């Protein structure tokens, strides 16, 4: 088990050697992830774990990918997607152009879910989906549009619960235990690395989705990232968070109004 002081050493190394700043990540979760990796990769001591991280850039990639959490699914919380369909997208339909940012998109399941919603609302042709993540590796998966076959049954059920009326399997072709989503969905996606901790706003958006990312940050970093989102949202833009995330600890709360009891807030000016 890693000690608090050892975590501090490791975090200092990551920042000084590579510029990754994890100091404002939720400590309890970070500690658990580092312990998990220590066991998985069978380091005999902390010193050896530390040396590997400092000196081996290939291992660093693994470290960052494993310590950050990259669990995601399509149409997670179907009711959330239902509200996007019925209440959010209709208010964006009149715009000449719709810009959406998936911040911390991981392997992209949520971006493809959104592309399906936009397709069904006849808005995909004038939309752009910016999908960013800290990890270059997960972005490669997202960019490929290729996912494992096994969870598709669950995703299809989620899709129907979200108000989807089509045959979900028409959106992909299956082969060898994997599915590839139709290129009509990915044409409007732009993938790029972006670190919410250190990178700035890069565009103005109508909708920002950042679901189950803020839970890994402490309150200080949460506030900083929420301010970054605020700076990146146009007037009357929407911010969508995960099911258990909230604006209640942030300064944004007074200028945003929650939509239909879901974790979606609309900027009031």
């Amino acid at each position: 088990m890693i000690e608090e002081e050892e975590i501090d050493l490791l975090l200092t190394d990551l920042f000084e050697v590579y510029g990754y700043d994890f100091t404002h990540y939720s400590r309890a979760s970070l500690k658990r992830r580092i312990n998990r990796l220590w066991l998985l990769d069978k380091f005999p001591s902390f010193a050896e774990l530390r040396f590997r991280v400092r000196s081996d850039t290939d291992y660093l990639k693994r470290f960052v990918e494993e310590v950050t959490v990259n669990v995601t699914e399509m149409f997670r919380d179907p009711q959330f997607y239902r509200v996007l369909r019925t209440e959010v997208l209709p208010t964006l339909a009149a715009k000449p152009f719709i810009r959406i940012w998936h911040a911390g998109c991981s392997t992209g399941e949520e971006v493809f879910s959104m592309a399906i919603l936009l397709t069904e609302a006849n808005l995909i042709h004038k939309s752009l989906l910016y999908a960013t993540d800290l990890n270059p590796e997960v972005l490669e998966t997202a960019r490929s549009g290729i996912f494992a076959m096994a969870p598709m049954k669950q995703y299809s059920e989620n899709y129907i619960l979200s108000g989807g009326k089509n045959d979900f399997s028409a959106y992909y072709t299956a082969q060898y235990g994997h599915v590839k989503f139709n290129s009509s969905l990915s044409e409007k996606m732009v993938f790029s690395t972006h670190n919410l901790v250190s990178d700035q706003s890069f565009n103005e958006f109508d909708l920002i989705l950042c679901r189950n990312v803020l839970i890994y940050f402490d309150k200080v970093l949460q506030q900083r990232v929420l301010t970054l989102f605020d700076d990146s949202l146009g007037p009357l833009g929407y911010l969508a968070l995960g099911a258990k995330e909230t604006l209640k600890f942030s300064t944004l709360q007074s200028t945003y109004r929650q939509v239909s009891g879901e974790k979606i807030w609309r900027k009031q000016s």
Partner: protein
Amino acid sequence: MAETKLKNPTEAILIGGSTGSIEVLLRVLPALPTPLSFALIIVLHRKNTADSTLATLLSLKTESPFREVDDKDPIRPGTIYLAPADYHLLIEQDKSFSLDDSEKVNYSRPSIDVTFESAADVYGSSLIGILLSGANADGTKGMQAIQKTGGLLVAQHPDTALVGFMPQQAIANTTTDYVLDIDGLIAFLKSVNTAQQTAASAF
């Protein structure tokens, strides 16, 4: 009985359970006094949907403040907390919650081990871990962590559990301090609470 083994005032009590544990809570919660002198944190294996039926059901059984945890909620004595579906529930050094949607542990999210281990780290010997009915070995590692940091361990008597496997595993692999039936559990929780109130009023 309980007072003799309690080394420190109890700051938090964790209850973990799976199959057959909701029935136990439906009996235990209404029997608890208010206010509680500790935070009561409940981690149950449950369906991974975001609906709040379970939270509503349990909240109706108690006079104490009850909430399903949101990210970064502070942990307050007297409040009963329920781990939300589909997240692991972790505890930070400043005694607030944080959530984690990483891989399932023991086929479960929330996992009892994850919360118990995290709480042991923060509360040390002022923690009590209670394991109820269940068909899964989740919770045993968490109980071991609590044992290691000096907390108190309680298991539901396997014969009184709908499924005895979960408490049985903990009893076999830890130095469980108390093995209790449901009435015993209620008496235990009351004694922990009263002990502290008596201690407090003695000053």
